[in-house]
């Protein structure tokens, strides 16, 4: 007995921002080079009245519309977000009522970024190992665009908004393998929004600061120390990937596809070369959507199974998330009846 990932759906906000549109605001920047190196052509941003749970609810509705699950089948809601609707209550409770999911359900939020989906799969499996729970609805949703300063060209180019909904269910065969985790809180300042929570209040007259090459932000905004996050990833993730392979007792060659958090095509290819993974086995596609934080892995996995007709039952996929925290996690899943 075990657990199995059986369905994924994703949604983007309607508003799309292309590189050509960003070029109008930042005429000095070479967006052609950005597209060829970082691999992003367009991203989606939530409108003023649209929040992360608006997107999350759309993803959940899409999941129910396209699968055999009914709302009454859900035993537990896991909601991964860093864009909560309120400081309290728990956003997952709002999703439960908005989606009309039965009240006989557990619901909790967890605050993780790019390592969130892999954490979520493991948590879902652990819940299902407790025999009272059969179906876990795992949701990811982010609207980082609301946190980014309009003058922060780099983060506006990289990040996009999205939501995903996945169903993890009890299964006779165990399709969710071993997952491992890592944390280095000393890097907490490398990807942070300083103001607005417990440490410092939102400051309407916060000072405009610059970083990198002509990017601007205040302490109310999202700040990312790009080189530090880049280096953390290239130093930690190759050896960590080896550990994940080892604990799952599988060789690189036997993994059908490596799906890493789609952060940046240049960085992904650097990781691929360091680990020694063949190009054909390694997923890189963030042209449409950009870096959507905890959403990139389920979006990539859904696109991969939809666009690839060589997938067979039992094929194994290695998933790897890494980012804000600093936090990382990864594991291996078997594709069985994933739709």
């Amino acid at each position, binding site marked *: 007995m075990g657990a199995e990932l059986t369905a994924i759906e994703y949604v983007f906000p309607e508003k799309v921002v292309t590189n050509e549109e960003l070029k109008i605001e930042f005429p000095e*920047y*070479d967006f052609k*080079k*950005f597209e060829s*190196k*970082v691999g992003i052509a367009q991203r989606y941003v939530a409108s003023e009245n649209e929040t992360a749970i608006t997107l999350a609810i759309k993803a959940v509705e899409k999941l129910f519309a396209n699968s055999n699950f009914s709302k009454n089948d859900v035993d537990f809601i896991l909601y991964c977000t860093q864009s909560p609707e309120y400081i309290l209550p728990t956003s997952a409770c709002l999703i439960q009522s908005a989606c009309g999911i039965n009240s006989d359900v557990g619901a909790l939020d967890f605050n993780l970024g790019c390592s969130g989906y892999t954490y979520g799969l493991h948590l879902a499996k652990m819940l299902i190992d407790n025999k009272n729970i059969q179906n876990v609805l795992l949701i990811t949703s982010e609207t980082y665009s609301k946190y980014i300063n309009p003058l922060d060209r*780099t983060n506006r180019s990289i990040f996009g908004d999205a939501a995903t909904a996945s169903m993890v269910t009890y299964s006779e065969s165990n399709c969710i393998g071993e997952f491992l985790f890592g944390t280095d809180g000393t890097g907490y300042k490398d990807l942070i929004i300083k103001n607005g929570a417990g440490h410092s209040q939102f400051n309407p007259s916060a000072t405009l600061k610059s970083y*990198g*090459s*002509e*990017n601007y932000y205040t302490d109310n905004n999202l700040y990312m*120390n*790009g*080189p*530090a996050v*880049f*280096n953390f990833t*290239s*130093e930690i993730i190759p050896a960590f990937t080896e550990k994940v392979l080892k604990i799952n007792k599988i060789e690189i060659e036997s993994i059908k596809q490596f799906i890493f958090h789609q952060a*940046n095509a*240049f*960085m992904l290819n*650097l990781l691929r*070369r*360091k680990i020694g993974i063949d190009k054909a086995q390694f997923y890189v596609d963030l042209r449409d959507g950009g870096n959507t934080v905890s959403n990139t892995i389920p979006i990539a996995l859904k696109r991969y199974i939809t666009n690839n007709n060589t997938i067979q039952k039992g094929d194994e996929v290695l998933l790897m998330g890494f980012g804000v925290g600093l936090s990382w996690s990864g594991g291996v899943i078997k594709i069985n009846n994933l739709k």
Partner: protein
Amino acid sequence: MKTNAFLTELTEELELEVSLQTNTKFKDLEDWDSMGAMVLIGFVSDNFGITLTGDDIENLSDVQSLIEKIGITKFSE
């Protein structure tokens, strides 16, 4: 690595319009920005197994200072 090969490969990797020389100052390059820094970190990591930090890059003056940071003994004429 031969210094000339290093200069040619790095010029290509950074997609620069002008060829890098040892005395080229990074901040004088027209398209030197955070993307260039990222490409430079990747290039040095791939070819020399050395990690440059954001501070290292901030403190680089010209290409010669990069060669010294990587280690002069790793280069030949």
